């Protein structure tokens, strides 16, 4: 079974700050991988490079067999990589249903209306269907953001802090819905997360970032117990503080 996504020797720096130092990663189909690390460790930079928002200074990103470095976000999305955002990116003046209709229509579904209704049900968004996206509570915005990403029928779904800004008691419920939908769609999931309980519960593999590099990679059990991870990622000196 060949990898969905392979990163080879990715380098990226912003002035003096090194945001990616020789990143080499391989993701297998059907897996759920969590990227952890402190703020500025390079997780989002990695997502941004994979989705074409940033161009690596050097290195290769292979989606399947194809090198996607230099492609635009739109082209990468068309190939089958979609993403959600730390701050949900929605069409605020459109209703929830219309947001999904835009997504389904771009994804060229035969019947966007039916597809939108299906997504509404799957993500438990139906009660909000007629509300303007700009007026939704944060948790629902997060869900809508992910549901739009999934509706482009991608093979690889990248989620940037799917539970940030959501109250603690909602987090698991939201992740259950998201992961359920992802599993049903059969996509590979890579998600950035700060909440280690969520990571432990949903990830099959964890990659820990520190200062632009990878300091640990493996099953949740091993990685979350590794000493450097506990020190630099979960460490007491840097408590969970999502910006």
């Amino acid at each position, binding site marked *: 079974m060949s990898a969905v996504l392979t990163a080879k020797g990715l380098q990226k720096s912003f002035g003096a700050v090194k945001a990616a130092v020789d990143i080499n990663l391989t993701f297998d189909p059907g897996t759920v991988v969590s990227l952890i690390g402190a703020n500025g460790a390079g997780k*989002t930079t990695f997502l*941004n490079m994979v989705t074409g*928002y940033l161009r690596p200074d050097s290195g290769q990103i292979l989606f399947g067999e194809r090198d996607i470095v230099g492609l635009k976000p739109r082209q990468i999305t068309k190939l089958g990589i979609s993403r959600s*955002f*730390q*701050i949900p*990116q929605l069409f605020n003046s459109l209703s929830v249903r219309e947001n999904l209709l835009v997504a389904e229509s771009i994804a060229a579904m035969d019947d966007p209306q039916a597809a939108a209704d299906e997504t509404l049900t799957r993500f438990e968004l139906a009660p909000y269907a007629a509300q303007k996206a700009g007026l939704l509570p944060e948790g629902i915005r997060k869900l809508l953001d992910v549901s739009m990403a999934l509706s482009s029928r991608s093979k690889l779904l990248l989620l*940037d802090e799917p539970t940030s800004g959501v109250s603690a008691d909602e987090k698991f419920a939201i992740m259950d819905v998201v992961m359920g939908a992802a599993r049903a769609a059969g996509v590979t999931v890579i998600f950035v997360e700060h909440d280690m309980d969520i990571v432990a519960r949903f990830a099959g593999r964890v990659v820990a970032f520190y200062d632009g590099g990878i300091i640990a990679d493996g099953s949740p059990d091993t990685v979350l117990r590794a000493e450097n991870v506990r020190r630099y990622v979960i460490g007491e000196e840097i408590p969970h503080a999502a910006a």
Partner: protein
Amino acid sequence: MSSILPIAFDGITYASWLFLISAGLTLIYGVMRILNVAHGSLYALGAYAACSLAGAWLGGGLPAAGSFAMLLLAALLVGSVAGPLIERGLLQWMYGKDEVVLVLITYALFLIMEDVIKLVWGVDSLLLPDPYALPGNFQLGGLTYPVYNVLLIALALATGLALAWALYRTRQGKLLLAVIHDRDMSMAMGINVSRVYLATFAVGATLAALGGAFTAPTIAVTPGIGVEVIVLAFAVVVIGGLGSLGGAALGALLVGLVRSATVRYWPEAELFSIYAVMAMVLIARPKGLFAAQEARKI
């Protein structure tokens, strides 16, 4: 070669004038996000006020040199009366509207002020040639120039430096810069936005009126002079980068020099040289010369 000097001097003179009228426009836009079409009317108001004040001064047989003080006074008067009147009386009710709507509001204001000026001063041109002739002439590259042009350049320089000092060296100025750079943040930090807006608009209006007052002696002050000015000032400000004082200076210089060279070497193109410059600058630098390119964080 002998033509280089005159071209440069004419260009710089024109640039000084452009800078005076664009500085206020860019300041108002930077702080208030209003592209003020009525800026041209304030310019015209300054010119008319200057004609009345300096005309009365000279008509009263007072020393001619004092007419320069009258020009300055006219600008300050317009800035401190008309500016706050417009801001308090009209604009403050409109904040928060779309930028395009704000442009239309100032356009309506411009239409109203055109007729107000006509009702007050009539349609005949006003002339104020004495301050222009007073400082005499000098020779440059074999050609005669009025010293007044040098005064105009000095005024623009002094205004620019004073503005830069006020913006970067005083507390109030730094507050303005803070509003220009991040409005939401500065509001959150408790800056009194209403006062900042009032002050900004008054200063901007004074600058427009200053441009008008010191142009008045060189031209015939007629209805419609504000219309001609406003699009020029827009172009300069857009070339320089909206909200940037240095940008306005550079934009004015660029436009002034290009125009003066065009007049000399390719007079047919004078009419659209400035728009060609604007289009080219925007094509090369989509947000103008001095605009900060903000990366969006996602």
